[in-house]
């Protein structure tokens, strides 16, 4: 059944008519054209569809859109500045060559946003656990961890001066 919901998507108040059987993944991709949210396994294993709902990373493929009614949703498209400049996290991924085919990248970046948002410092082992909900089939994990480590350190130092 079609239902009207309200979400704040990437900072913008959005009113939408959605089917109540829809996943947030399908709503974001098909109704809002946010194709940075990738459709991978569709069973919550690969993490490619990760977005933030009220600041928490969730697999949008196993998250019903109805649950996001009244909440704030952030996708990779929402990270760039109004002037179109990439965020520090995105830049770190580029600088560390943490992107190969790029399919896992938007999801991993959203998890990085959640991690950086905690304001805590994490060592490499802890970071490995924190990204364990993502699969990179190019197996470029080393560079992804380098980027994560870099951005976590930089942010921590910037806020604890």
């Amino acid at each position, binding site marked *: 059944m079609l239902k009207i919901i309200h979400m704040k998507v990437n900072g913008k108040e959005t009113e939408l008519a959605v089917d109540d*059987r829809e996943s947030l993944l399908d709503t974001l991709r098909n109704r809002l054209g946010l194709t940075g949210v990738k459709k991978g396994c569709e069973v919550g294993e690969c993490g490619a569809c990760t977005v933030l709902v009220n600041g928490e*990373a969730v697999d949008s493929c*196993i998250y019903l859109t109805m649950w996001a009614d009244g909440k704030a949703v952030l996708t990779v498209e929402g990270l760039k500045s109004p002037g179109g400049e990439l965020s520090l996290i995105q830049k770190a991924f580029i600088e560390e060559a943490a992107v190969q085919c790029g399919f896992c990248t938007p999801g991993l970046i959203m998890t990085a946003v959640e991690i950086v948002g905690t304001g805590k410092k994490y060592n490499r082992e802890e970071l490995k656990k924190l990204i364990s909900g993502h699969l990179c089939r190019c197996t470029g994990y080393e560079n992804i961890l380098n980027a994560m480590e870099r951005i976590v350190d930089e942010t921590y130092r910037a806020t604890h001066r």
Partner: protein
Amino acid sequence: MYDIKNYYEAKSAEDAVEALSKDPDSEIISGGTDVLIRMREGKDAGKSLVSIHNIEELKGVSVEEDGTVLIGPATSFSRLTNDPFIKEHMNVLGEAADTVGGPQIRNTGTIGGNICNGATSADTASTLLTFNAVVVLKGTDGTREIPLTEFYTGPGRTVRRQNEICIAIKIRKEDYEGWQGCYFKYGKRKAMEISTLGCAVRVKLSPDRKTIEDIRLAYGVAAPTPIRCRKAEDLVRGKETKEPHLTDLLADAALLEVNPRTSWRASKEFRLQLIHELCKRAMKEAVLKAGGELDA
């Protein structure tokens, strides 16, 4: 699009019970990390869903005046792990919750779903058994309280009726105060894994930390349902921590109470070995955490 017949977003626990009663073919969805996957695989396709996802009264941890802890069933694993009270008084439960799936799953999956699914592999179930947790169910005739030890009736089956919802998981003060515990999960990989075997041991030492005043042992995947090993506990209760081969005494006795099966994940023989070894390691860790010393 999911193959859902009818979808209803419940406004309160009472509202959910009413909606479930109206449609006997409906089931509850909370975090959705199991229900939606079963639906995707076709197992639960075409069912009606009553969602309790956004009911705030079913979330969070609260403590009553007498120290009894009430865990809201719709509390996500990550909220549970990070809850200040859980961290301070029942850290082992937070640690067990932190072994479920991966970070995103733990942000949506709930402890109530973990229990009400009836899965023997539920990571929080064995630990909750060692807390003597009680499941509070709400139905059309009011509420009833079922000890977790009597909650499971078989693989994937519990005493919960179709139109009942879990409104709290209750733990008494004497079951957490002064205890220390450890949960070990064995899986083929470190994350995104259903446990091959899970073992929880909790101990309460005497004030001089030389005697095991009380001990509790529970397993996941060691039988068709999560189980407590009371006979093994009885053997070790009251013993001095320094008694030789104390962990072997517990682990040997546990082997007589379990009933693991062979599945594609592991053979019965391998599970029996895990049941013995993880028990020893978990007991050792629990005694160390409690400030005691073990001979073995």
